[in-house]
């Protein structure tokens, strides 16, 4: 552990300001998303809570607290020495796996929307270990695939296998919940990391085929629960089921569409205030943006994601070390596919799976994970400029 005490030259330089090294564009874009998300969470909940005699700012307050904690985590992730991060990775990974195992024990985990995904905490808080598992998988795989190799060296098949084991154990546990949305996002990250690691194209092609086949088998063999099959079916024909998943998808699309170009104005969306779309502050937060902010506002949100991701690609490319590049790649794939899955579901392009919109949706675990992911990008940006 002695290397932990070795101070890197960067650390000294960064000491002068807590924010030195932060990429201003990335930070700016994420900050705007956080502010918009806060407004949207408030817009999604204030009216309904007030109408039902509850504190209209209940969600707003919690969301702000979540962001505050998340920002501290992001800051911590940014300034921490990556070697320290590497050292902690097995612990983070192990805790993630433990958490994932814990939620599956009947009576201990909480079930929301058919997925056994939550650990209840005192004070009404919950933790979703799958969110944190994303980070441990990304960091763990990047570590294994970059550890011994030099820039020119490509990871051996053994390395790839080890990396896949690191990913497979938590993914299997998440499959048991089942939370197909998260499995999809992690799979995308895994394939992206392995592809960018320089591993043989056979591996990449094989994994892609495996993912498609796995999806088909899971659906056919009933590994995906009825609940999820229903969600998939309602994606194919949203008018088939007027009360369940199809109803939600149709309502979501109508709500977004009714916003038009300019939107109804923040806090003034009748669909949002009438709460015709369920899970409005979490999985369907984008409907609030669509209705109240119109194409102008919701298009801006999509644009912000494009800016964040393209910026992150820049960081990955500039990174001098494979480790940083792989971490960046994993985080990019995670953010990109989660965003695409969430907004795509809202707009009727993707089947319904319960994944939150990064930096915008209400939800502590997801917010913490997203901001840690953001911190990882900043960390690579600050330390591994090539």
């Amino acid at each position, binding site marked *: 552990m002695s290397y932990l005490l070795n101070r890197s030259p960067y650390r000294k330089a960064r000491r002068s300001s807590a924010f030195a090294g932060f990429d201003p564009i990335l930070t700016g874009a994420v900050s705007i998303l956080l502010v918009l998300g806060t407004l949207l969470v408030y817009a999604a909940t204030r009216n309904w809570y007030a109408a039902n005699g509850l504190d209209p700012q209940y969600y707003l307050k919690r969301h702000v607290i979540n962001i505050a904690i998340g920002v501290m985590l992001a800051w911590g992730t940014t300034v921490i020495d990556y070697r320290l991060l590497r050292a902690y990775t097995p612990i983070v990974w192990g805790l993630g796996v433990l958490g994932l195992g814990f939620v599956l024990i009947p009576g201990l985990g909480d079930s929301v929307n058919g997925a056994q995904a939550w650990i209840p905490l005192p004070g009404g808080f919950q933790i979703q270990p799958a969110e944190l598992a994303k980070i441990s998988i990304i960091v763990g795989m990047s570590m294994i695939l970059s550890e011994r190799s030099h820039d020119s060296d490509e990871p051996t098949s053994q390395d790839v296998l080890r990396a896949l084991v690191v990913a497979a154990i938590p993914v299997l546990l998440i499959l048991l919940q089942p939370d197909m949305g998260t499995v999809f996002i992690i799979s995308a990250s895994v394939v*992206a990391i392995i592809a960018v*690691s*320089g591993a043989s*194209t056979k591996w*990449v092609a094989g994994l892609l085929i495996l993912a498609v086949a796995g999806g088909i088998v899971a659906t056919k063999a009933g590994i995906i629960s009825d609940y999820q099959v229903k969600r998939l079916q309602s994606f194919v024909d949203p008018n088939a089921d007027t009360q369940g998943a199809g109803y939600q998808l149709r309502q979501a699309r109508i709500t977004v569409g009714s916003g038009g170009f300019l939107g109804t104005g923040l806090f003034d969306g009748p669909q949002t*205030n009438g709460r015709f779309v369920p899970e409005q502050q979490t999985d369907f937060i984008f409907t609030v943006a669509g209705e109240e902010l119109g194409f102008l506002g919701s298009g801006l949100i999509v644009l912000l*994601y494009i800016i964040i991701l393209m910026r992150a690609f820049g960081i990955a490319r500039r990174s001098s070390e494979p480790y940083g590049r792989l971490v960046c*790649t994993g985080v990019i794939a995670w953010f990109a596919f989660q965003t695409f899955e969430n907004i795509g579901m809202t707009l009727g392009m993707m089947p319904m799976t319960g994944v939150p919109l990064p930096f915008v949706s209400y939800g502590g675990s997801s917010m913490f994970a997203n901001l840690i992911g953001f911190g990882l990008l900043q960390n690579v940006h600050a330390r591994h400029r090539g």
Partner: protein
Amino acid sequence: MSQRSRLSLIFLQIFIASLLFALMGRLFYLQVAAGPKYRDAALSIQSRDVVTPATRGLIVDSSGVPLALNKVGLAITVDRTKIDKQEDKGVKVLKNLSLLLNLQYSDVWQRTRLCGELPKGKKAGCWTGSRFQPIPITKEADPQIALQIVERSDKYPGISATPIAIRSYPGILDVNAAHLLGYVGPLTDYDLSGASGRSYFRSESIGKAGLEIKYDSYLRGSPGIKTVIVDRKEAVTSTSQNTKPTPGNHLVTNIDVRLQAATEKALADAVRRARASGHRADGGAAVVLDVNNGAVLSIASYPTFDPNSFEKGLTVQEAKDLFSESNGVPALNRALQGLYAPGSTFKAVSIIAAKDAGYSLTANYACPASVEVGNRVFNNFESKAQGTLSLKKALAVSCDTIWYRIAFDEWLRDGGLRPKSDANDYFFKAAARFQMGEKTGIDLPSESKGRLADRNWRKAWYSQNKDFYCNYAERSTKAQQTPFLILLAKENCVDGDKIRAGDAVNFSIGQGDTIITPIKLAQMYGAIANGGTIWQPVVAKAIISNSGKVIKTYPYRELGNIDVAPATIDFLHDALHEVTISGTSAGVFAGFPIATAGKTGTAQVFGKNANGSAKDDTAWYAGFAPAKNPKFVVAMMVSQGGFGASTSAVGVKQIFQSIFGVTGNKVIPGTALFKNGNPPWKLPKISPATRPAGEKK
């Protein structure tokens, strides 16, 4: 970085960028390109229309006496948006309510379910409106009960008592007029489908029969609409639009409430009289028209029903009774839907046919007890020989055999069973000039058009029934296989497409296959009375707005002319007057101070009643008065009522008594219905408080 890594990274970047730009494109499509469509969809999700029904216009008689108005009722209503929020979904409160109103809980539960909530086949009694409309359980609650509900709102949450306007038929002078007025009721799915070309709001009431449906578009006004914005739990969050209801317009009719009451009473008395002399008398109708313009002054059908029963809430049994055969089908308006052979009332038409055929109206004709037509013997009425009679006298005593002779001769002249292509068909043509077989065009729904059994009809009938009669042994039931019917079938198969001698002679005395409605007979005798004009009977006189403005008046319409020489009309007037002097209704009108004219009809009916008894004769009387310069024509019909004279002529006399103010055999000055003898032409002022003129206080 290895080349492979670099390429992978670039590939990943392009892939992700295209995913996000796809999102952007989709977003643009949904919000900008298809935005208006989704805005409409969202509006229909968020907004609900709460409908305040308009006050329906009054229906009044020609002097403004209300026949239909609105009265204030106390409605006990259930608010589904409130009881659904209760823990037991309102079970307890509905149980309390049924106890209070002395109703079955299952009934109340059923009536508060939206039709869409119930499975197919179990929708009877369901609420056709929306969840936001208060659902009425009764519209005429006892004020005491209403007070209990208002005071104990803790015991009856979601239940309220509110005064509402309900349709009421006040029955002034005990007038019923159910068939004329019709009734109002809730909308059916058919109404809502827009198939009638009108659009309605679910909670509206609309006219269901009679004038209420015929003039519904004027009477109903337009409902007030309050558009509210609701949330997913259907709680109202705001009101976005509010239009006040516009009350409906009033309908002024040509009806005179006093004459209507007298007509109904005379009809009911006729039925009673017929029954007292052993006839079945299962129904009847009476109509009074103004001979000079076709105005319908009164119109009645028997048996009848209470038009108010619909607003009180019809039980299933009551609804069934309206249409049950054993009850005489009270819903049927026999004045314009009842079809019967006209019998001897048709002889006025035969006079015109005979005149056209060249028979002298002043000559004498033999009236033997029977006439042999072909190989069949046709008997005079009651097989009585009357010697030689003038045509006038023959009409007065209703001799049949004169007509058998003439009709048979004319049939032979037209070629008999090998009809000439240019057959004269005097009898058919005379009937056609009266527009028999066509509707009178009265402004009431569901009029039947009757049947003129001429050569064309016969051919059409044959092509439809040929198969049945020519394969009678296989096609008929066991009960139909009597020697007479088998013989008849054989005849029908051979020459059923032709007018046979028997058909021709039957036609001349209003028997056989020709059938008409009472309103048609009134129209025909009106034409004889006024010198030949066929008027379209019209009930409506004008539409007057709530503020007293005349929206529309209904002109009288001539439908045609019977084109009869004035001399023939004079002869008919004289002969039909003779009926009341020395003819079949002489006994009835003996001593009547006003000279009238008319004709009895006692028409045979083939077929059997449900209990197997042979059907009784149809008792007809058509009369007009005064005999000179006639103003009113009355037709009365009692089915299975026996003799035209003793049953219907007496009823018509009773109506004349009322019109001319006759008591005993004297005209009592000042008691006649109409000043100067004419119905009022000025439009009345509309007020629900108007009372009939000359009413005893």
